């Protein structure tokens, strides 16, 4: 009997604690930033639906650029960033930390990669093999499509943290002199890859993995020297007008990875912070999400709902 009483009181305390968290979450404003790429759109929805289903919260989703979301998480005006890419946002993270605007990162990141890619036939057609080759005028000219003698290369969407670093890389390798660096929404760039593949024309472009383009086309990464910390120095574009000239990135990207980021107010809700810390997607999850949104034309919300249904055991693990 005594044992049963104890059990009952533990259960009661547990329920009381859970209800306190629920009421806390329901009262606290939780805004989730949604950056402009497909896997982040899905994971933002998965986080939102889980917060609603398991914690009784009423999260709000807002679309913003990745850097804006990160800064707002630092200010606690947005509470969650679904994909904080590193090393892309390291400079911004350091600036926020110096200003006591902490962004907490979930410990279990997803392995990622960032490169310059080409269709496989581009290698034979143009003789390009490495990123450094793009600084050779005779190689670069083969990617010329507007008659100015310089090639064209897509380096990312304007709102992406990687785009600024790709500018630095182009400057460090020297192909900012031989190629026009194009900043465009990802869908425009991917349509250009589709057209190049259909016509058998050469193309080079910034690429990141996990991504559905590797499933859609025969895409290869251009070679470059392995990451060397001594050759990577990134000035902060917010503080240095000559940040491109004062930066250097003449090797491959460091091993990339991305994490869920959350604000100080979320840290004070241990159940929710515990859930965010437990999230662990793998590369296959991310490719499937990206493919479902971009190729199969399923809305991020629907992909998220299906993913939750198919992975209730994992959600259960993350939220227990």
């Amino acid at each position, binding site marked *: 009997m005594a044992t049963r009483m104890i059990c009952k009181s533990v259960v009661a305390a547990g329920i009381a604690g859970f209800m306190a968290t629920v009421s806390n979450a329901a009262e606290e404003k939780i805004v989730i930033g949604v950056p402009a790429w497909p896997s982040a759109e899905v994971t933002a929805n998965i986080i939102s639906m889980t917060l609603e289903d398991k914690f009784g919260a009423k999260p709000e989703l807002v679309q913003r650029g990745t850097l804006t979301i990160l800064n707002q998480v630092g200010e606690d005006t947005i509470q969650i960033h679904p994909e904080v890419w590193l090393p892309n946002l390291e400079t911004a993270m350091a600036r926020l930390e110096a200003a006591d605007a902490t962004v907490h990162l979930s410990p279990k990141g997803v392995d990622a990669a960032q490169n310059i890619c080409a269709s496989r036939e581009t290698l034979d057609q143009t003789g390009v093999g490495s990123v450094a080759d793009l600084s050779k005028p005779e190689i670069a*000219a083969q990617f010329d499509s507007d008659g100015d003698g310089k090639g*064209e290369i897509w380096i990312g969407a304007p709102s992406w943290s990687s785009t600024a670093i790709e500018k630095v890389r182009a400057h460090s390798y020297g192909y900012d002199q031989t190629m026009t660096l194009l900043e*465009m929404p990802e869908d425009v760039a991917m349509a250009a890859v589709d*057209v190049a593949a*259909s016509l058998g024309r050469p193309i080079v472009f910034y690429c990141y993995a996990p991504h559905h383009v590797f499933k859609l086309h025969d895409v290869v990464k251009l070679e470059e020297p392995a990451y060397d910390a001594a050759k990577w120095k990134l000035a902060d574009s917010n503080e240095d007008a000559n940040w491109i000239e004062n930066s250097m990135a003449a090797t491959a990207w460091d091993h990339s990875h991305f994490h869920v980021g959350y604000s100080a107010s979320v840290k004070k809700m241990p159940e929710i912070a515990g859930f965010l810390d437990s999230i662990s997607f793998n590369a296959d999850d991310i490719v499937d999400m990206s493919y479902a949104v*971009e190729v199969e034309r399923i809305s991020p919300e629907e992909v998220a709902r299906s993913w939750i249904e198919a992975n209730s055991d994992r959600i259960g693990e993350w939220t227990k």
Partner: protein
Amino acid sequence: MVNLLTRFRRYAPLLILAPILAGTAIAYAQTFKTQIYDPDTRKWYNYDQNRAMKYYRKHGQTPGDFQRQVVTFRTAEKPGTIIIDGDKHFLYYVLPNFQAIRYGIGVGRDGFGWAGIVEVGRKAEWPTWTPPPEMVARDPNAAKYAGGMPGGPENPLGARAMYLYVGGQDSIYRIHGTHQPWTIGLNISSGCIRMVNDDVIDLYSRVEVGARVIVLMQGAALYKGV
């Protein structure tokens, strides 16, 4: 070698067209002000409309590459989307199962000096053409139609027009037909994206208002001299 032959066949029509223009350049170099850019040879050629018309009348059609055809097209875009490649002068209408209909297009002399995503906001059959005020001011023929030229075989917008909208607002760009089919494959005359009338009628019958239109960044204006 097979690859080389395939490539030659693929671009043979363009190679045929280029010498017509290049030959003109040698004979009458001083008399030409208008030039077009050939992306395959990466050279500028003087443009002679009479020779282009003769070529068209002799063959009775646009060069093979610019004729409407279904091509393999692996894409993440949904069926019904239009992709415009102003550089290579192709318009793709995405079909299911990784296929697309590829049409030849002409690009206006102002070119598509921009890239991005717009949508078909409105469609019209045998549209009225209203010349812009600057054309009315300089061209007495255009001035006759300052109030609008009714649709018909002489109307420069041709048989159909699809009006491209940005953020719900009409842009100045249209996909339309032409009564000058010899201009397909080139960057000449004023206008936006021109297609031969048969093609624009075909495209019009497939496209829905609200369809997404992606204009590739390689489609910069490849025209100078006017």
